[in-house]
Every structure is written in structure tokens, then in C-alpha cells.
């Protein structure tokens, strides 16, 4: 098994009577860094949660290589998730566990490894990220940047083939953002995973991504290399790149 290509076909999702995704099509390249950019509240995170099976689509297909996962059995999803890791916006560390146990948790749960063995590997990961000192701390005692790094350590411990990042740099100062961006690059180099990053940080996207897709009002309006984006004449893309408050996107935050 190796890092899969992910293909989304005609994805539709409404919350109540509010449509969020309207027939979205998307191709994500295997073993590459794929950025999905767009406005806040434009459905980026919703799309990502569909890819991880946390939300079920009303309609549409989600392919991991040649396996269609929309509406698949829970057991199939579990199998796929063994190869997957997800870095949540605020880390989603377990408050009731120490940092060390948080990082060791996936190993313990997926391979039924005992805490001691899982802990050894967890400590290695934390040392790589300069967090060895936080071993016994509770997630609540960490700073936002530390939490994000611990979450990254936890995401990487299983050596996943698919890695999802939900707004990895939101709420971090520029220095930390750069550090996390660096980590994303490093991760790919090591794991050769299919990386999918959801972000509104256009600069990071253009600098790091192999592939960029822009989502706007429930659809992908442009898909391609960073170069394609820089050259695009699409008004919405131009507005987003320039950060203007006037344009087809409406008011930008």
C-alpha cells in the first residue's frame, strides 16, 4: 500500500436548508502537498471532514485510489483510517491524558501496543519536535504553538499515508507559522504521504504546495500548480491573491 490519490466527484452537502457543498469535483495528487484555499466559512473544513469520513455526503463520491468511500461500511472506514492522520485546527489533544500519552495514543489504540512500547516511540517524536520536556504536562498547560506541535507529533507517529491539516497556521504568530509550514514540508519528505492542507494562508499555499485548489461558494473554481494560480485571470482568484475587500468574493476577512 502506498499513498493514494484522492478524487472527489459531485459532492453535495447541506446543513438543514443551507447548502455548503454544491457538486464539488476535486483531484488530489498522491504523495504531494495539496492545498485547498478559500474564504473562511466557504466549506473548506466541511470538505476535509468528508474526506476523513467525519461527515457523510448527501450525494457524491469520494475515491481513495480505486475505492469509493462515500457511504462505505464503518469497518471500511476504520481500515482506511489506519492509514490516515488528521491535524485539527486547535490540535484536539485529549485533555484527560498527558502529552506523552496523547502522542502514544494512536499506536496504543491501533496496534494494541502497550503503553511502554508506544511511549518509547512517542518520546522520539516529541524530541524531534523539541518537546521532550512537555512529556508529563497536560495539554491545557501548553501554548498554542506547543499544542500544534504535539498534535503534529501525534499525527506522525503512525507514519500515515494520508495526512490532513485543518488550518495549521491559523492563530499562530508569523514565526510559528513558518515553523509549522516547515514541518509540513519535512513531513512529506519523510513519509511520502498524500498531504491535504486546508488554509486561507495564500502565501504559504503558493510557497509550499505542489497542487492548489480554490473553493468558492461550494465549488472548486480553480485547480492547478501555484504557477497556474499566479497567472490566473479569474477575478475571484485575483481578489483572493491580492487580499482586496472589493470583488466577486464579497467582503474578505
Amino acid at each position: 500500500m502506498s499513498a493514494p490519490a484522492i478524487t472527489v466527484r459531485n459532492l453535495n452537502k447541506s446543513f438543514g436548508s443551507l447548502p455548503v457543498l454544491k457538486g464539488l469535483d476535486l483531484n488530489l495528487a498522491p504523495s504531494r502537498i495539496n492545498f485547498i484555499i478559500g474564504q473562511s466559512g466557504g466549506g473548506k473544513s466541511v470538505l476535509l471532514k468528508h474526506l476523513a469520513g467525519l461527515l457523510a455526503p448527501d450525494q457524491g463520491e469520494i475515491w481513495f485510489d480505486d475505492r469509493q468511500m462515500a457511504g462505505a461500511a464503518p469497518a471500511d472506514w476504520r481500515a482506511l483510517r489506519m492509514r490516515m492522520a488528521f491535524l485539527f485546527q486547535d490540535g484536539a489533544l485529549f485533555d484527560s491524558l498527558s502529552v506523552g500519552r496523547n502522542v502514544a495514543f494512536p499506536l496504543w489504540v491501533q496496534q494494541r501496543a502497550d503503553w511502554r512500547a508506544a511511549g518509547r516511540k512517542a518520546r522520539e517524536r516529541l524530541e524531534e519536535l523539541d518537546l521532550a520536556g512537555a512529556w508529563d504536562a497536560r495539554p491545557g498547560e501548553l501554548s498554542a504553538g506547543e499544542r500544534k506541535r504535539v498534535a503534529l507529533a501525534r499525527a506522525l507517529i503512525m507514519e500515515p499515508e494520508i495526512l490532513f491539516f485543518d488550518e495549521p497556521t491559523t492563530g499562530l504568530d508569523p514565526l510559528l507559522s513558518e515553523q509549522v509550514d516547515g514541518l509540513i514540508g519535512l513531513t512529506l519528505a519523510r513519509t511520502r504521504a498524500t498531504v491535504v492542507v486546508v488554509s486561507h494562508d495564500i502565501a504559504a499555499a503558493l510557497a509550499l504546495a505542489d497542487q492548489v485548489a480554490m473553493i468558492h461558494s461550494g465549488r472548486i473554481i480553480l485547480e492547478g500548480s501555484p504557477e497556474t494560480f499566479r497567472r490566473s485571470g479569474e477575478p475571484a482568484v485575483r481578489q483572493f491573491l491580492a487580499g482586496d475587500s472589493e470583488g466577486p468574493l464579497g467582503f474578505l476577512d
Partner: protein
Amino acid sequence: MYKSSTEIKVGLFVLAALGLFVWMAVRLGGFGLSVKDTYNISTVFPSAVGLKQGVAVEVAGIQVGTVASIELYDDKQARVVMAIQDGIRLPADSAAFIRSSGLLGDKYVELAPGGGTQEKLEAGGQIAAARAAADVSDVMQQLGEIAADLKKITAPLAEGNTGSDLKDLISNLKDMSERLSGIVSANEAGLTETLAALNGSMTNLQEITDKINSGSGSLGRLINDDSTVRELNQSLASIRHITGRIEAGEGTLGRLISDDGTIDKVDRALSSLTGYLEKEDKFKVFVEYRADYLTRHDFLKSTINLRLQPGPDRYYLLGVTGDYFGKYKRSDFRSTDANGVVRNSIEEEWRRDKLKFNAQIARRYYDMVVRGGLIESGAGLGLDYYLDEDKLRLTLEAFSGDFDERPHLRAEASYNIWKIFYFNLGYDDFISDQHRASPYFGLGLRFNDDDLKYLLSGASSLF
């Protein structure tokens, strides 16, 4: 807003099961929520003191109706109208009593069904009122009469008139003991209550004891009189005389006790009762076979169950089901690839036409059976509700599937069309997330042990 109909379906399913539970609880709790049709009968009492509208009307201690109204009759008596439940047919010569119950002596109406006529009471019929008896004041009054009798006996003695006729004395004594036994037999049931009431009514007792102590009233005079001891001795002698007669087989009671035939009769009654109980308690065995056609999957699913029924209120079910979907097995594998990276892989295996097992314990409450145990190899619960003298059965079942993450739910109606034949109609696994939901219909056969014996002996006679 609620796009997913699965939850709604489950909600309806659970609501139906809860509804059955509530219904059962209401019946077991004996809450008379259902309004039964009634017919009215009436009776006229000399007095309806303490009787209130809505209190119980009982026959042999079982409530059969309520007092509908109380009105003045002929300007001096009380006419009591009683609403009796339809279906309870009383003989026309029944009589009504006013009786009291409990510590506080609440009044209710007791009906004593007569036996002298085949005629039954019709709506609007009138029955005779028996003496409103067995309350404390009545008993006190009667005791007073006895005391007066005693005085009649003792008066000549006290006067020193020893020459008076002994025959008179004996006849007086006999009179008195007859009266005593009259009180006792007339009030036998009531007396127990009266005693309870006596215990409870402190004020009454207080009054009585006060009167006794002050020597006022007949009882008081009786007790305070020195001659009482002598009289009591004589009374005891007469009681001895009565018991002597009973031993000698005189009188109804005597005949009853002395007659050997009585014992035979009692014996026979007891043996027929045990016979009846044995029949009801008999261990029964049923064999059930059923085949159901699942319309959406074009598949015939068959089940054979053995039902062991040690009593009418419970049974055990053992059986097998041949299922189209068979068994699903998955194994997780762990391997380490060339780079030393641990990989998880999963192997899935489907085995079709595998047998699934049923093993359940069931308990019956009125019309409802609650089952639990293994249903098609999954842990589950079942509810059966029987209607129309057990001909129609409504079933709800929920058990864990081996593949679906959702419970396997099933709703079914089954009707006993003829003798051992049943027709089943249902909806299987209707919330499956694996597209397994399907309506089904089918035929069932159910043999009890007698059928089986017949079949087996028939078969053996062939050889």
C-alpha cells in the same frame, strides 16, 4: 431538518416497544384505566349510613361494580343504585349487605349471590337488602341481649330461689347458646373485621371500658356482679354439652365432621384440583419451522426452533437460521515493510449460507412475551404481543448484527391461519446501512408434543 429517516424509524420502533411496556405496566399494576360497560341494579336499605357514591360493590371479596347513587326511598329508607360490570350475571335472589373494611370502617356493599333460582338479574333489577350487620354498635347491642338473657337465668339464682325449675334454666341456657352461635355464624366473616375495627376504634373502646368500670350498661353490670363467675361456669357446661353433641354427630356441623364421607369428598376435590394444576403446569415442547421470502433479495430464509415450555408463563427457545448474508469475518494484520514501517492491513472474508443460532429465554406477562438472548447469533431482545386469543402475534426484535454497526431491527405480524399453520409478514433489518432492508412474507408450522407424538406414531406404523 431531519433528513435521515433512520433515526425516525428507530424512534418509532422504540416508541412502539415503550408503548407495549407502558400498557403491560398499567395492566400489571392493576390500574383500571379502561372504562367497562355496566348495568344498574338497586336495593333498599333501612339505612345507608356511611355509604358513599363511588365505593366498591363486591362479590366474594372481588370488585364487580360501584355504588352509582344513593337516594331517599319512601321518605324513610335508602335506595342504593349499583353499577355492575357487564358480563357479571348475578342470580335474581342475591342479597346485598353494607359492610365495613379497614381500621376506619369504610363502608362498601357486598353482594351475596343466591342459589335458589336459575333466573339472573336483569338491568334495573332489584334485590333484597340483608341486614346491615357486623359493625361495632350491632355487636354491642347483641351482646347486651345476651347479657339480658344471662340475667334472666341468674335472677332466680340471685334471689336464692333454688327451688326453681332446672328445666327452665337449661332451656334458657340453650336459648342463649343458640343466640350466641347465631351471632357468630351470621357474622363470622364480619366478626374478624369487627374485631379489627374494635382494635382500632380507641374511642369506642374507651367508652365501653368506662361504662364497664362504672358498672353502667348491661355488660358493666354483668362483669361487676359477683354472681358472674357462677354463671360463667354454667355457660361453660352448656358449651361442653354442645361440643358433646357435635362429637356424637348430631347437627349439621357434627355430621360434617363425624362423617367419613366428608373426608372422601374433600379428598376428591383436592385431587381434581391438583389434576387441573398438573395439566396447566405440564411441560410442553413445540417445534417451529418457518420459511420467509425476503422480497428485495429474492431469498428464502428458513428457521427451525425448539421451544421448551416448562410453564405457561415462560419458555426457552433453541434453534438455527439459515441466512443468505452468511457470516462476515475480518482480521487485522500487522506487518513491517522493507523500510521498517509498520503497516496495518485487513482481510475480509464472507461466508455465505452459514447457520446462525437462536437461544432465548422468554417470559410471558398477560398478552406480552419478553424474550432475550441470542437472536440469529447476535445478542438481542424481542417483544411479542398476542391478540385475538393468541392467533395474532405482533413482534418487535432488536439484535446486534455482525457487520452492520446499527442494530438489526425487525417488525413482524404473524397470524395462525389454520391449526398448525401461520402466515408471517414483516420488515427485516429496516435500518441497515448495508442495504439489507427488505420486506418479507412466509409460512410457519408449529407442532406441539401431541402433534409430534401423533406424527411419530403414524410414521412408525408405516414400517
